[in-house]
């Protein structure tokens, strides 16, 4: 019976303190009864192996003790699938942010490889934070749901309107757009303090024309609006008329800024007292870069016009679909 005592001691270790005596007393009686029953059937005392066999079948002490306790879970089955999706998205975003920071950071330092590797090493810590906060948030949500019985109070009439599959957008695309825009905003914010970020080595010879001072804040505001629109695409991944109008507004704003900037005629000027080396003519360098800027502005304007055309087409197609849906028997508006 020494083996039984050892087994009970091990089970006791995993039990809640206030239940230990009661459960162990009952468990002991049941196991002793079973062993005595077996001895009676065999007509002899049980061997150590036979005793061990009974205890082994009864189960591992930790699992046996666990079954006496109330079932607890941090995130219930209702929320678990959404939790897994949120966790995957969070870890993906953390990876993208880490990669962007590593690339941008390594471009700004003298030792890009070392900086890149160091920045990537930050990912496990970042991923752990994402895991902890996502888990805590969903545990809180699950707790609130169980307390407030949210499942009983929802109204199906508050569901989003019917959206045709072709009007859905890629969440991954919106997310990438958001991260890219945020990275661009960060880059734009750094440029006034470090013109090398825009002009590279030529920053010692050239500087931006005064027109950029005028356009700087509108460009930043436009980028912030673009980031907000991308965020909307992540949260509500389908086209709506309001979103199309906002996009048209954003591209119209881009065209207006391009027009203002273009009217200036020069976008880069030579620094006062700057002298070109290696036989390069400074005026020629300024001309070449300004020509490049002009082409860049024209391409930006063209892209803006194409995007406005796409949004107008999208709006018209939605209107046609809505009319078709409403005219169909039992049709619903999209």
């Amino acid at each position, binding site marked *: 019976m020494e083996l039984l005592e050892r087994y009970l001691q091990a089970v006791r270790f995993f039990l809640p303190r206030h239940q230990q005596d009661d*459960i162990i*007393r*009952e*468990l002991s*009686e*049941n*196991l*002793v*009864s*079973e062993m005595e*029953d077996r001895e009676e059937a065999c007509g002899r005392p049980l061997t150590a192996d036979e005793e061990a066999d009974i205890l082994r*079948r*009864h*189960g591992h002490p930790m*699992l*046996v003790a666990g*079954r*006496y306790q109330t079932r607890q879970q941090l995130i219930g089955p209702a929320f678990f699938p959404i939790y897994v999706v949120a966790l995957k998205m969070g870890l993906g975003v953390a990876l993208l942010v880490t990669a962007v920071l590593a690339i941008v950071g390594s471009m700004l330092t003298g030792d890009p490889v070392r900086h890149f590797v160091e920045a990537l090493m930050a990912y496990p810590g970042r991923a752990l934070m994402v895991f902890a906060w996502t888990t805590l948030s969903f545990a809180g949500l699950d707790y609130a749901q169980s307390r407030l019985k949210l499942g009983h109070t929802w109204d199906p009439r508050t569901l989003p309107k019917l959206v045709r599959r072709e009007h859905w957008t890629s969440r991954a695309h919106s997310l990438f757009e958001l991260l890219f825009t945020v990275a661009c905003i960060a880059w734009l914010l750094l440029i006034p303090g470090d013109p090398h970020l825009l002009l590279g080595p030529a920053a010692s010879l050239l500087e931006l024309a005064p027109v950029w001072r005028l356009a700087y804040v509108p460009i930043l505001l436009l980028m912030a609006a673009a980031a907000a629109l991308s965020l909307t695409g992540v949260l509500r991944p389908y086209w709506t008329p309001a979103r199309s109008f906002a996009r048209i507004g954003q591209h119209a704003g881009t065209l207006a800024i391009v027009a203002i900037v273009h009217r200036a005629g020069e976008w880069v000027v030579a620094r006062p007292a700057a002298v070109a080396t290696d036989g390069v003519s400074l005026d020629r360098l300024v001309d070449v870069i300004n020509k490049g800027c002009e082409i860049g502005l024209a391409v930006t304007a063209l892209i803006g016009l194409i995007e406005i055309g796409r949004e107008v087409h999208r709006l018209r197609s939605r209107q046609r679909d809505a009319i078709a849906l409403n005219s169909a028997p039992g049709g619903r508006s999209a």
Partner: protein
Amino acid sequence: MATSLAGDPAFDNLRLELRRGFLTVAVLAALRTEQYGYTLRKLLAEHGLAIDESTLYPLLRRLETQGLLVSEWREEARRNKRFYHISEQGAQVLAQLLAESRSIDAALRGILAE
């Protein structure tokens, strides 16, 4: 003749789910006569409802916490044992569960007969 699927994980899970509810009903039914843990397990096994000790004993305590069973420590064969029997509330619940079980059985028979 249908091949036995015992050992197939998907089948075993479904069987476990199906048996879980019935085992509770069986325990309540068996405890219309007073039993202690080990004899109850033997009784269920004799009727073809074998159940692990590590499942049965915690189940007894849960049913007691829910007020469906009552227990008392009493001496038998010179040893103290905890005897369980069904409570008044447990008897009412058992009657309703049996009615529910008959209703499910009738519904299934109807579906299978189609």
